[in-house]
Protein backbone atom coordinates (compact mmCIF):
# COMPACT_ATOMS: atom_id res chain seq x y z
CA UNK A 1 0.00 0.00 0.00
CA UNK A 2 2.89 2.35 0.84
CA UNK A 3 4.56 1.48 -2.46
CA UNK A 4 1.31 2.19 -4.30
CA UNK A 5 0.94 5.56 -2.56
CA UNK A 6 4.56 6.42 -3.43
CA UNK A 7 3.95 5.37 -7.06
CA UNK A 8 0.83 7.54 -7.21
CA UNK A 9 2.77 10.54 -5.89
CA UNK A 10 5.88 10.23 -8.06
CA UNK A 11 6.25 8.08 -11.17
CA UNK A 12 2.54 7.33 -11.39
CA UNK A 13 1.64 10.96 -11.93
CA UNK A 14 3.73 11.10 -15.11
CA UNK A 15 2.41 7.75 -16.30
CA UNK A 16 -1.20 8.81 -15.74
CA UNK A 17 -0.55 11.90 -17.88
CA UNK A 18 0.93 9.72 -20.64
CA UNK A 19 -1.82 7.12 -20.32
CA UNK A 20 -4.55 9.74 -20.77
CA UNK A 21 -3.52 10.10 -24.44
CA UNK A 22 -4.21 7.68 -27.26
CA UNK A 23 -0.97 6.05 -28.39
CA UNK A 24 -0.88 7.80 -31.78
CA UNK A 25 -1.81 11.19 -30.26
CA UNK A 26 0.92 11.01 -27.62
CA UNK A 27 3.67 9.85 -29.97
CA UNK A 28 2.57 12.25 -32.73
CA UNK A 29 2.59 15.25 -30.35
CA UNK A 30 6.01 14.36 -28.95
CA UNK A 31 7.51 13.80 -32.42
CA UNK A 32 6.08 17.17 -33.52
CA UNK A 33 7.78 18.85 -30.55
CA UNK A 34 11.01 17.03 -31.45
CA UNK A 35 10.79 18.30 -35.05
CA UNK A 36 10.41 21.88 -33.77
CA UNK A 37 13.36 21.42 -31.39
CA UNK A 38 15.53 19.91 -34.13
CA UNK A 39 14.60 22.77 -36.49
CA UNK A 40 15.65 25.39 -33.91
CA UNK A 41 18.86 23.44 -33.21
CA UNK A 42 19.59 23.28 -36.95
CA UNK A 43 19.07 27.05 -37.31
CA UNK A 44 21.48 27.66 -34.38
CA UNK A 45 24.11 25.30 -35.86
CA UNK A 46 23.67 26.86 -39.33
CA UNK A 47 24.09 30.34 -37.83
CA UNK A 48 27.33 29.23 -36.17
CA UNK A 49 28.51 27.74 -39.48
CA UNK A 50 27.87 31.02 -41.32
CA UNK A 51 29.47 33.18 -38.60
CA UNK A 52 32.52 30.92 -38.46
CA UNK A 53 33.72 32.23 -41.82
CA UNK A 54 31.41 35.18 -42.29
CA UNK A 55 33.82 37.32 -44.33
CA UNK A 56 34.62 34.52 -46.78
CA UNK A 57 30.93 33.66 -47.01
CA UNK A 58 30.05 37.29 -47.82
CA UNK A 59 32.70 37.53 -50.54
CA UNK A 60 31.71 34.18 -52.05
CA UNK A 61 27.98 34.81 -51.93
CA UNK A 62 28.01 36.62 -55.28
CA UNK A 63 29.96 33.83 -56.99
CA UNK A 64 28.21 30.80 -55.57
CA UNK A 65 25.23 28.91 -56.96
CA UNK A 66 22.67 30.10 -54.42
CA UNK A 67 20.01 27.65 -55.54
CA UNK A 68 22.45 24.73 -55.23
CA UNK A 69 23.58 25.96 -51.80
CA UNK A 70 19.96 26.26 -50.62
CA UNK A 71 19.24 22.76 -51.91
CA UNK A 72 22.29 21.41 -50.06
CA UNK A 73 21.23 23.10 -46.80
CA UNK A 74 17.66 21.82 -47.21
CA UNK A 75 18.96 18.28 -47.75
CA UNK A 76 21.07 18.53 -44.60
CA UNK A 77 18.10 19.91 -42.68
CA UNK A 78 15.86 17.05 -43.79
CA UNK A 79 18.51 14.49 -42.83
CA UNK A 80 19.01 15.97 -39.35
CA UNK A 81 15.33 16.49 -38.60
CA UNK A 82 14.34 13.12 -40.09
CA UNK A 83 16.93 11.22 -38.06
CA UNK A 84 16.00 13.07 -34.88
CA UNK A 85 12.28 12.44 -35.50
CA UNK A 86 12.95 8.69 -35.94
CA UNK A 87 14.97 8.56 -32.69
CA UNK A 88 12.19 10.49 -30.89
CA UNK A 89 9.56 8.13 -32.31
CA UNK A 90 11.44 5.11 -30.94
CA UNK A 91 12.05 6.74 -27.53
CA UNK A 92 8.45 7.90 -27.06
CA UNK A 93 6.96 4.62 -28.34
CA UNK A 94 8.99 2.80 -25.69
CA UNK A 95 8.01 5.34 -23.05
CA UNK A 96 4.31 5.02 -23.89
CA UNK A 97 4.27 1.23 -23.77
CA UNK A 98 6.26 1.25 -20.51
CA UNK A 99 3.84 3.75 -18.94
CA UNK A 100 0.77 1.79 -20.05
CA UNK A 101 2.24 -1.47 -18.74
CA UNK A 102 3.08 0.17 -15.42
CA UNK A 103 -0.42 1.69 -15.13
CA UNK A 104 -1.98 -1.69 -15.86
CA UNK A 105 0.04 -3.24 -13.04
CA UNK A 106 -0.94 -0.39 -10.70
CA UNK A 107 -4.64 -0.86 -11.52
CA UNK A 108 -4.34 -4.60 -10.95
CA UNK A 109 -2.81 -3.94 -7.53
CA UNK A 110 -5.56 -1.40 -6.77
CA UNK A 111 -8.20 -4.01 -7.59
CA UNK A 112 -6.44 -6.53 -5.35
CA UNK A 113 -6.35 -4.00 -2.51
CA UNK A 114 -10.05 -3.23 -2.96
CA UNK A 115 -10.81 -6.97 -2.75
CA UNK A 116 -8.76 -7.23 0.46
CA UNK A 117 -10.82 -4.40 1.98
CA UNK A 118 -14.08 -6.10 0.97
CA UNK A 119 -12.99 -9.32 2.70
Amino acid sequence: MTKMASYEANEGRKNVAIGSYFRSDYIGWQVLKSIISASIAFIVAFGMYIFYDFEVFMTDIYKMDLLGFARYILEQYLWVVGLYAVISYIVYTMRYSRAVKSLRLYQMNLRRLAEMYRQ
Partner: protein
Amino acid sequence: MTTLLVMKQIIMTLYSKYEVYITPCLKFVLALVSLLFINSRIGYMESIDKLTIVLIVALMCSFMPLNFVIVVSALFTVLHLYSFSLESAAVVGAGFLLMFLLYLRFSPKDTIVVVLLPVCFLLRIPYVIPLAMGLIGTPASALSVACGVIAYYMVHYVAQNASAIAAMADEETGAKFRFIIDGILRNREMVVVIAAFATTVIIAYLIRRLSIDYAWTIAMVAGAIVDIMVLLVGDLMFDINIGLFGVIFGNIVAFLFALVLQFFVFNVDYSRTEKVQFEDDEYYYYVKAVPKVAVSRPEKKVKQINSQRAKTVQKTRNTH
Protein backbone atom coordinates in the same frame (compact mmCIF):
# COMPACT_ATOMS: atom_id res chain seq x y z
CA MET B 1 29.71 -4.30 9.74
CA THR B 2 26.58 -4.56 11.84
CA THR B 3 27.13 -1.02 13.09
CA LEU B 4 27.40 0.21 9.49
CA LEU B 5 24.22 -1.63 8.55
CA VAL B 6 22.40 -0.13 11.53
CA MET B 7 23.68 3.29 10.50
CA LYS B 8 22.42 2.73 6.96
CA GLN B 9 19.05 1.75 8.34
CA ILE B 10 18.93 4.88 10.50
CA ILE B 11 19.93 7.11 7.56
CA MET B 12 17.28 5.53 5.34
CA THR B 13 14.61 5.89 8.01
CA LEU B 14 15.57 9.50 8.63
CA TYR B 15 15.55 10.26 4.91
CA SER B 16 12.13 8.72 4.35
CA LYS B 17 10.79 10.56 7.43
CA TYR B 18 12.19 13.99 6.54
CA GLU B 19 12.34 13.65 2.74
CA VAL B 20 10.23 16.80 2.32
CA TYR B 21 12.97 18.87 3.98
CA ILE B 22 16.08 16.93 2.97
CA THR B 23 15.45 16.98 -0.81
CA PRO B 24 15.16 20.82 -1.06
CA CYS B 25 18.24 21.13 1.18
CA LEU B 26 20.25 18.87 -1.15
CA LYS B 27 19.05 20.85 -4.18
CA PHE B 28 20.07 24.05 -2.41
CA VAL B 29 23.56 22.69 -1.67
CA LEU B 30 23.99 21.45 -5.26
CA ALA B 31 22.93 24.80 -6.74
CA LEU B 32 25.09 26.71 -4.25
CA VAL B 33 28.19 24.62 -4.95
CA SER B 34 27.80 24.74 -8.74
CA LEU B 35 27.16 28.52 -8.79
CA LEU B 36 30.07 29.21 -6.44
CA PHE B 37 32.34 27.13 -8.67
CA ILE B 38 31.16 28.99 -11.79
CA ASN B 39 31.77 32.34 -10.06
CA SER B 40 35.22 31.29 -8.87
CA ARG B 41 36.24 30.04 -12.33
CA ILE B 42 34.75 32.69 -14.65
CA GLY B 43 33.41 35.43 -12.40
CA TYR B 44 33.55 38.20 -15.00
CA MET B 45 30.14 39.76 -14.32
CA GLU B 46 30.41 41.54 -11.00
CA SER B 47 26.67 41.95 -10.49
CA ILE B 48 26.10 38.18 -10.21
CA ASP B 49 29.46 37.39 -8.62
CA LYS B 50 28.08 38.10 -5.16
CA LEU B 51 27.32 35.66 -2.37
CA THR B 52 23.90 37.19 -1.70
CA ILE B 53 22.81 36.71 -5.33
CA VAL B 54 24.12 33.15 -5.34
CA LEU B 55 22.32 32.38 -2.07
CA ILE B 56 19.02 33.79 -3.36
CA VAL B 57 19.25 31.87 -6.65
CA ALA B 58 20.27 28.65 -4.83
CA LEU B 59 17.31 29.08 -2.50
CA MET B 60 15.04 29.50 -5.52
CA CYS B 61 16.50 26.29 -7.04
CA SER B 62 15.68 24.32 -3.89
CA PHE B 63 11.94 24.70 -4.56
CA MET B 64 12.12 24.09 -8.30
CA PRO B 65 12.56 20.82 -10.26
CA LEU B 66 16.11 19.47 -10.31
CA ASN B 67 16.60 20.35 -13.98
CA PHE B 68 16.18 24.02 -13.06
CA VAL B 69 19.67 23.90 -11.49
CA ILE B 70 21.09 23.04 -14.93
CA VAL B 71 19.26 25.96 -16.58
CA VAL B 72 20.43 28.40 -13.88
CA SER B 73 24.03 27.15 -14.07
CA ALA B 74 24.03 27.51 -17.86
CA LEU B 75 22.53 31.01 -17.56
CA PHE B 76 25.17 32.09 -15.03
CA THR B 77 27.94 30.75 -17.29
CA VAL B 78 26.64 32.57 -20.37
CA LEU B 79 26.16 35.84 -18.44
CA HIS B 80 29.72 35.74 -17.10
CA LEU B 81 31.08 34.98 -20.56
CA TYR B 82 28.95 37.78 -22.05
CA SER B 83 30.71 40.20 -19.71
CA PHE B 84 34.06 38.87 -20.89
CA SER B 85 33.44 38.61 -24.64
CA LEU B 86 30.30 38.41 -26.72
CA GLU B 87 31.81 35.79 -29.03
CA SER B 88 32.60 33.30 -26.27
CA ALA B 89 29.13 33.80 -24.77
CA ALA B 90 27.58 33.17 -28.22
CA VAL B 91 29.59 29.97 -28.80
CA VAL B 92 29.09 28.52 -25.31
CA GLY B 93 25.42 29.63 -25.28
CA ALA B 94 24.86 27.91 -28.63
CA GLY B 95 26.50 24.76 -27.24
CA PHE B 96 24.19 24.76 -24.23
CA LEU B 97 21.16 25.48 -26.43
CA LEU B 98 21.97 22.53 -28.69
CA MET B 99 22.31 20.28 -25.61
CA PHE B 100 18.97 21.44 -24.20
CA LEU B 101 17.14 21.15 -27.51
CA LEU B 102 18.52 17.84 -28.66
CA TYR B 103 19.18 15.81 -25.54
CA LEU B 104 18.07 17.33 -22.26
CA ARG B 105 14.50 17.86 -23.51
CA PHE B 106 14.03 14.11 -23.31
CA SER B 107 14.56 14.86 -19.58
CA PRO B 108 16.01 11.54 -18.51
CA LYS B 109 16.47 11.07 -14.79
CA ASP B 110 20.22 11.57 -14.89
CA THR B 111 20.48 15.02 -16.51
CA ILE B 112 21.86 16.36 -13.23
CA VAL B 113 25.16 14.75 -14.26
CA VAL B 114 25.64 17.74 -16.59
CA VAL B 115 26.05 19.92 -13.47
CA LEU B 116 27.75 17.36 -11.24
CA LEU B 117 30.48 16.43 -13.71
CA PRO B 118 32.00 19.94 -14.10
CA VAL B 119 31.91 20.31 -10.29
CA CYS B 120 33.73 16.96 -9.94
CA PHE B 121 36.24 18.08 -12.59
CA LEU B 122 37.05 21.12 -10.46
CA LEU B 123 37.37 18.88 -7.39
CA ARG B 124 39.70 16.68 -9.50
CA ILE B 125 37.52 13.58 -9.10
CA PRO B 126 35.61 13.39 -12.42
CA TYR B 127 36.12 9.62 -12.63
CA VAL B 128 33.52 9.11 -9.90
CA ILE B 129 30.61 10.10 -12.15
CA PRO B 130 30.99 7.61 -15.06
CA LEU B 131 31.55 4.72 -12.66
CA ALA B 132 28.57 5.71 -10.52
CA MET B 133 26.34 6.18 -13.58
CA GLY B 134 27.37 2.79 -14.92
CA LEU B 135 26.24 1.26 -11.62
CA ILE B 136 22.96 3.09 -11.09
CA GLY B 137 22.12 4.42 -14.55
CA THR B 138 21.37 3.10 -18.01
CA PRO B 139 23.47 3.07 -21.21
CA ALA B 140 21.79 6.41 -22.06
CA SER B 141 23.69 7.86 -19.09
CA ALA B 142 26.75 7.81 -21.37
CA LEU B 143 25.09 10.67 -23.31
CA SER B 144 24.51 12.67 -20.11
CA VAL B 145 28.12 12.12 -19.11
CA ALA B 146 29.27 13.24 -22.58
CA CYS B 147 27.15 16.42 -22.26
CA GLY B 148 28.75 17.11 -18.85
CA VAL B 149 32.25 16.68 -20.30
CA ILE B 150 31.45 19.02 -23.21
CA ALA B 151 29.99 21.63 -20.83
CA TYR B 152 33.14 21.54 -18.70
CA TYR B 153 35.63 21.69 -21.57
CA MET B 154 33.77 24.56 -23.30
CA VAL B 155 34.05 26.75 -20.21
CA HIS B 156 37.53 25.44 -19.38
CA TYR B 157 38.83 26.36 -22.83
CA VAL B 158 37.51 29.93 -22.63
CA ALA B 159 38.83 30.37 -19.06
CA GLN B 160 42.24 28.95 -20.01
CA ASN B 161 42.59 31.14 -23.09
CA ALA B 162 41.03 34.26 -21.56
CA SER B 163 44.17 36.35 -22.00
CA ALA B 164 44.56 35.32 -25.67
CA ILE B 165 40.91 36.13 -26.40
CA ALA B 166 41.14 39.44 -24.53
CA ALA B 167 44.30 40.37 -26.46
CA MET B 168 42.44 40.17 -29.79
CA ALA B 169 41.13 43.51 -31.01
CA ASP B 170 37.41 44.23 -30.85
CA GLU B 171 37.20 44.40 -34.64
CA GLU B 172 38.45 40.84 -34.97
CA THR B 173 35.07 39.33 -34.19
CA GLY B 174 35.40 36.67 -36.88
CA ALA B 175 38.87 35.66 -35.73
CA LYS B 176 37.71 35.41 -32.08
CA PHE B 177 34.77 33.32 -33.17
CA ARG B 178 36.99 30.94 -35.16
CA PHE B 179 39.54 30.74 -32.34
CA ILE B 180 36.91 29.67 -29.80
CA ILE B 181 35.04 27.23 -32.08
CA ASP B 182 38.27 25.64 -33.33
CA GLY B 183 39.60 25.35 -29.79
CA ILE B 184 36.46 23.59 -28.59
CA LEU B 185 35.86 21.33 -31.59
CA ARG B 186 39.51 20.32 -32.01
CA ASN B 187 40.05 19.61 -28.34
CA ARG B 188 41.44 16.08 -28.48
CA GLU B 189 41.56 15.78 -24.70
CA MET B 190 37.80 16.33 -24.60
CA VAL B 191 37.22 13.63 -27.23
CA VAL B 192 39.43 11.13 -25.35
CA VAL B 193 37.72 11.88 -22.02
CA ILE B 194 34.26 11.47 -23.63
CA ALA B 195 35.34 8.14 -25.16
CA ALA B 196 36.81 6.93 -21.84
CA PHE B 197 33.81 7.97 -19.73
CA ALA B 198 31.22 6.63 -22.20
CA THR B 199 33.04 3.28 -22.39
CA THR B 200 33.24 3.16 -18.58
CA VAL B 201 29.50 3.78 -18.23
CA ILE B 202 28.60 1.09 -20.77
CA ILE B 203 31.08 -1.55 -19.49
CA ALA B 204 30.09 -1.00 -15.84
CA TYR B 205 26.39 -1.17 -16.80
CA LEU B 206 26.77 -4.36 -18.85
CA ILE B 207 28.74 -6.19 -16.15
CA ARG B 208 26.59 -5.16 -13.18
CA ARG B 209 23.51 -6.48 -15.00
CA LEU B 210 25.03 -9.95 -15.37
CA SER B 211 23.66 -12.75 -13.27
CA ILE B 212 27.01 -13.57 -11.70
CA ASP B 213 28.21 -13.39 -8.12
CA TYR B 214 29.84 -10.10 -7.13
CA ALA B 215 28.66 -8.50 -10.39
CA TRP B 216 28.79 -4.98 -8.90
CA THR B 217 32.32 -5.37 -7.57
CA ILE B 218 33.54 -6.81 -10.89
CA ALA B 219 31.76 -3.96 -12.72
CA MET B 220 33.51 -1.38 -10.51
CA VAL B 221 36.96 -2.87 -11.05
CA ALA B 222 36.40 -3.39 -14.80
CA GLY B 223 34.97 0.13 -15.20
CA ALA B 224 37.94 1.73 -13.43
CA ILE B 225 40.46 -0.32 -15.45
CA VAL B 226 38.74 0.45 -18.76
CA ASP B 227 38.70 4.15 -17.83
CA ILE B 228 42.44 4.15 -17.11
CA MET B 229 43.23 2.13 -20.24
CA VAL B 230 41.22 4.30 -22.65
CA LEU B 231 42.67 7.50 -21.16
CA LEU B 232 46.22 6.19 -21.40
CA VAL B 233 45.78 4.86 -24.95
CA GLY B 234 44.22 8.22 -25.91
CA ASP B 235 47.16 9.98 -24.30
CA LEU B 236 49.62 7.89 -26.31
CA MET B 237 47.72 8.34 -29.57
CA PHE B 238 47.05 12.07 -29.38
CA ASP B 239 49.79 13.20 -26.97
CA ILE B 240 47.44 15.14 -24.70
CA ASN B 241 49.46 14.99 -21.46
CA ILE B 242 47.01 13.30 -19.12
CA GLY B 243 48.78 12.72 -15.79
CA LEU B 244 49.17 8.99 -15.11
CA PHE B 245 49.22 9.46 -11.33
CA GLY B 246 46.12 11.67 -11.40
CA VAL B 247 44.20 9.14 -13.52
CA ILE B 248 45.09 6.19 -11.28
CA PHE B 249 44.51 8.07 -8.03
CA GLY B 250 41.22 9.50 -9.37
CA ASN B 251 40.03 6.03 -10.30
CA ILE B 252 40.92 4.67 -6.86
CA VAL B 253 38.81 7.44 -5.33
CA ALA B 254 36.04 6.57 -7.81
CA PHE B 255 36.26 2.92 -6.79
CA LEU B 256 35.98 3.82 -3.09
CA PHE B 257 32.98 6.02 -3.80
CA ALA B 258 31.43 3.18 -5.81
CA LEU B 259 31.89 0.89 -2.80
CA VAL B 260 29.88 3.32 -0.67
CA LEU B 261 27.24 3.45 -3.39
CA GLN B 262 27.13 -0.35 -3.49
CA PHE B 263 26.67 -0.47 0.27
CA PHE B 264 23.60 1.75 0.02
CA VAL B 265 22.08 0.50 -3.24
CA PHE B 266 23.08 -3.12 -3.77
CA ASN B 267 24.20 -4.74 -0.53
CA VAL B 268 23.59 -8.48 -0.93
CA ASP B 269 24.88 -11.65 0.69
CA TYR B 270 26.12 -14.02 -2.03
CA SER B 271 26.92 -16.76 0.50
CA ARG B 272 23.19 -17.31 1.03
CA THR B 273 22.31 -17.44 -2.68
CA GLU B 274 19.55 -19.86 -3.53
CA LYS B 275 18.81 -21.39 -6.89
CA VAL B 276 15.25 -22.57 -7.25
CA GLN B 277 13.40 -24.18 -10.08
CA PHE B 278 9.63 -24.37 -10.49
CA GLU B 279 6.91 -24.37 -13.12
CA ASP B 280 3.37 -23.28 -13.80
CA ASP B 281 1.03 -24.07 -16.69
CA GLU B 282 2.91 -21.91 -19.17
CA TYR B 283 6.55 -21.57 -18.03
CA TYR B 284 9.52 -23.20 -16.35
CA TYR B 285 11.29 -20.85 -13.96
CA TYR B 286 15.00 -20.97 -13.12
CA VAL B 287 15.38 -18.42 -10.34
CA LYS B 288 18.51 -17.25 -8.60
CA ALA B 289 17.62 -15.48 -5.36
CA VAL B 290 20.28 -13.42 -3.63
CA PRO B 291 19.18 -12.14 -0.21
CA LYS B 292 19.77 -8.51 0.72
CA VAL B 293 21.89 -7.84 3.76
CA ALA B 294 19.68 -6.15 6.31
CA VAL B 295 19.53 -5.76 10.02
CA SER B 296 16.62 -4.59 12.04
CA ARG B 297 17.17 -1.37 13.87
CA PRO B 298 17.75 -2.13 17.56
CA GLU B 299 14.93 -0.78 19.62
CA LYS B 300 15.93 1.09 22.71
CA LYS B 301 13.92 0.09 25.74
CA VAL B 302 13.79 2.65 28.50
CA LYS B 303 13.18 1.00 31.84
CA GLN B 304 11.77 3.43 34.34
CA ILE B 305 12.93 2.89 37.85
CA ASN B 306 10.73 4.89 40.15
CA SER B 307 11.99 3.29 43.36
CA GLN B 308 12.27 6.59 45.21
CA ARG B 309 8.67 7.48 44.42
CA ALA B 310 7.48 3.99 45.28
CA LYS B 311 9.29 4.09 48.61
CA THR B 312 7.72 7.47 49.45
CA VAL B 313 4.26 6.12 48.66
CA GLN B 314 4.89 3.05 50.83
CA LYS B 315 6.14 5.21 53.71
CA THR B 316 3.02 7.38 53.58
CA ARG B 317 0.83 4.30 53.58
CA ASN B 318 2.68 2.90 56.62
CA THR B 319 2.26 6.12 58.63
CA HIS B 320 -1.47 6.09 57.91
